[in-house]
């Protein structure tokens, strides 16, 4: 006896019989068949010297400065106005109404009406030989300010987290494009056969808004996607042997599966099958190598002290230390996400005041230690470190419920990032914003420019690193991207 819902589903299904399907799809099927005949899904060609499934021995376009990249992404969008972009003028305007000219024709996630301007909630001090103004929220980082180049007039196209994070990580606000790390490994290959070339580490709680697509491989073969590792519990999920299966049996099973896959590839020719074979092989090798490299307990006590780690937990400090260990093991691209920077001020301690100061405590010492530790090991010269969020925060206060808690809304016109190491100038500041930190007024740098610069330091020309997909060549930077020569040492 069917109930009424089941009956409805059944009735509906009878309208779409196989005959209907075939009849309605005649032209579509033809096109699909033609597409596979002429090789639309052939997986594209390689422009860099990469090998399809093995990652070795791809070559850069010119002499690389960076061998590895560590990208510290502060998910949520930290306020530039409380960290690196000192605006005394904004302090004077604190509490005043925002002039309509700054609101008209602009898109904000939450701001509406006439918000009040919000002066910087952090104190600033001039630090380092370069004389940069840095927030009191970052007492440790202030001491290494002479190692970095501040990019103070970054701007983006998106004012919501997920699209802005996608733009920052894949060069496109829409889903489906390969991430920065995937492009890098595609262009340069991996140094270490036993570890993934692109590792992702998260902290700060919760998944980032853009989800796993932020480190996906898009239309590149899946062998280039990021592998998420955890600093708490098993480093990589589903990597260890199942209960009562020993290494020997595991190895034999994988061999058989790979053999079947190889035959399938010979039959069908889909390169994704080779990716699958490579991933099984890599996963097996990683069983031995990953637990070792991810075990930060091996580090001496003074290193733990330096980073402020918390072994066994999931923390930004642990991830910074892991990043350094991975660089030492030849991992090409290490992507960190720290998810705690969305300071809307929807409640007490959620704004750019005390709340943000506490967030800074979680990253200040670790990221400073990362720079110093890379430096003393001689690795900073060939490791590019990038820090920043997906956008900045407004100079206006957001008071969603009518009561303000020092919150700032998302802001795409201006924000600050920094880069260090691998041929980037030391103790330099690039770009300026207006007197309230709303617009970049000098040396603005778009996300595409950042991507072009990162690839450039890796020895890759962003205009030549292409992948043919669905009939045309794609680039990380699409049709954009300039490398600002002024920030290169």
């Amino acid at each position, binding site marked *: 006896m069917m109930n009424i819902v089941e009956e409805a589903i059944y009735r509906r299904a009878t309208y779409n019989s196989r005959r209907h399907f075939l009849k309605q799809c005649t032209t579509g099927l033809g096109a699909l068949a033609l597409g596979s005949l002429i090789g639309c899904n052939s997986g594209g060609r390689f422009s860099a010297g990469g090998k399809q499934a093995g990652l070795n021995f791809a*070559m850069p*376009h010119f*002499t690389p400065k960076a061998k590895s990249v560590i990208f510290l992404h502060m998910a949520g969008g930290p306020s530039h106005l409380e960290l690196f972009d000192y605006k005394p003028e904004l302090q004077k305007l604190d509490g005043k109404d925002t002039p309509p000219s700054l609101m008209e024709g602009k898109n904000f996630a939450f701001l509406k009406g006439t918000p009040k301007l919000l002066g910087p909630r952090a104190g600033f001090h001039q630090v380092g030989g370069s004389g940069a103004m840095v927030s009191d929220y970052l*007492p440790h980082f202030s*001491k290494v300010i002479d190692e970095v180049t501040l990019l103070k007039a970054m701007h983006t196209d998106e004012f919501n987290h997920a699209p802005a994070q996608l733009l920052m990580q894949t060069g496109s606000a829409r889903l489906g494009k390969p991430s920065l790390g995937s492009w890098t490994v595609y262009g340069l290959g991996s140094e270490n056969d036993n*570890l993934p070339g692109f590792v992702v580490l998260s902290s700060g709680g919760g998944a980032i808004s853009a989800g796993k697509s932020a480190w996906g491989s898009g239309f590149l073969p899946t062998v280039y996607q990021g592998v998420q590792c955890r600093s708490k519990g098993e480093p990589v999920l589903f990597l260890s042997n199942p209960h009562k299966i020993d290494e020997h049996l595991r190895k034999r099973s994988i061999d058989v599966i790979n053999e079947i896959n190889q035959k399938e590839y010979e039959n069908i020719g889909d390169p994704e099958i080779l990716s699958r074979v490579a991933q099984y092989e890599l996963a097996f090798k990683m069983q031995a190598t990953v637990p070792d490299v991810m075990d930060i307990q091996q580090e001496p006590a003074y290193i733990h*002290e330096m980073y402020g780690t918390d072994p066994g937990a999931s923390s930004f400090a642990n991830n910074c230390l892991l990043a350094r260990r991975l660089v030492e093991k030849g991992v090409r691209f290490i992507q960190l996400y720290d998810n705690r920077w969305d300071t809307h001020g929807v409640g007490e301690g959620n704004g750019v005041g005390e709340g943000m100061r506490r967030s800074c405590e979680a990253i200040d010492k670790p990221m400073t230690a990362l720079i*110093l530790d890379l430096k*003393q*090991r001689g690795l900073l010269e060939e490791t590019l470190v990038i820090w920043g969020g997906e956008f900045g925060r407004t100079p206006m206060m957001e008071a969603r419920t009518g009561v303000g808690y020092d919150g700032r809304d998302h802001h795409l016109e201006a924000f600050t990032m920094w880069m260090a190491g691998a041929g980037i100038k030391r103790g330099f500041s690039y770009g300026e914003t207006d007197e309230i930190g709303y617009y970049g007024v000098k040396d603005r740098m778009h996300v595409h420019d950042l991507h072009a610069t990162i690839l450039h330091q890796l020895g890759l020309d962003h205009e030549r690193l292409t992948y043919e997909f669905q009939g045309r060549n794609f680039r990380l930077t699409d049709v954009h991207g300039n490398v600002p020569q002024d920030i290169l040492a």
Partner: protein
Amino acid sequence: MLVDVPDFVLFVGRFHPLVVHLPIGFLVLAVIVAFVSKLEKFQKLEVALDFILLLGAISAILACALGFMLSQGGDYDPNTLFWHQWLGIGLAVVSVVLYCIRTKAPQVGGISAKLNSSYAFVLILVLLTFTGHYGGNLTHGSTYLLQYAPDPIRIMAGMGPKAVPRPPVTVLDSADIFLDVIHPVIQSKCSSCHNQDKTKGQLLLTTYENMLLGGEEGPSLVPGDLERSLMYQRVTLPSTHGDYMPAEGKTGLTDDELAILEWWITNDAPPSMQLAFMQVEIDISPKLERVLGVRASFDSRLPDKEVASADSSLIQDAVAEGFVIKKIVPESNFLEVRLPFTGQKLSDMELQVLLPIKDQIVWLDFSRGQVQNADLEVIGQLTSLTRLNLANNELTDEGVRHLLGIGELNYLNLYGTQVSDASLSVLKNLPKLRSLYLWQTEVTDAGVAALKAEKPDINITLGEEFLFLPEQDSVRKNGE
């Protein structure tokens, strides 16, 4: 120059370069048909000849009319223009007359005009050639055609041999600010309109003197005075501005070129001066390097030389021994060598296999590789090395002295070894050494200070910077 020419006339006139190719095509075809149709095989073409000639004549008249309109815009060399104009008109007249005779007056002097028009066709060809040549000179300049011709041809044409190009600049200091930097930029961006043949705005920008002289609106260059130097004012306008130069959508000066032009004029615009004798500010020199295409100072990451490709069998030998070997960039033959990440150590490998490819190996990473002092004897023979990483090995001053022969060495990482101050007095003799890493060694602060005083170019990292840690010294020294 004629003023107040209606825009419409110029608009239509600018179709002249397009339309002008019609009579060229038709008349050349007519000449070919006229002669070829004398052959039996092509006799049938004869009937088409008058029609082709008619098309040629009509298009020639049209081209003349449009050409006259175009010439009203001025700015063309009057002498060349005179010849181009009258030869063109002559060509149109000859074509029309010939057509009329052939069709309307079949008998001239008792002989068939059709049979006897060969001379007229030859005349058409000659007129066509000269008209076309002068037209080309008007547009591209009189030197365009023979610019790349072999010297004997140039000399026959009275142009003299090709100018000897200035030797390519390899070092920034030896470049001349005007002859090597400013002049080539002006040549490529301005001279196509401001030359002897096409002197737009009565302005010549081919020599320094011409720049001082300027054009209709006054001097183009006033040394030391950006405000009055029109050449600077016009190129820095917004590109949408009517007075922006270069006009007509041609590629403008780059940011680098603008900055250099500004710097040159501000510094009294010397007509010739080596950069070595000028005060080149720190922000200008990278711009000069980019415009001149010279390598930014000197890329310390590779040796300043080229090498032949290493024999692939020799590379295979080294790979078989367990070394990981990669080419650094596709265009050069330099190699990078490191130990595999599988845990294989140098103690299990035969280091000698690297010696046959020592010219090519420039980057070497043997960190954590159980390298012994004795191995440094071999590594010291890899004299092309620019980057050498020996961190975390059991090495002492005894081994380090073998590195003295690596004259190209720029980066040396000895952290986590047992070297002491004694090594510093050896390493200071490496002429190109710039980065030296000595964390967790026996090297003392005093030793480093002494070396820094003697060799300020060397960046020494001692891992001294745990400023936020309580026990700085114990941290650094008791590393393990």
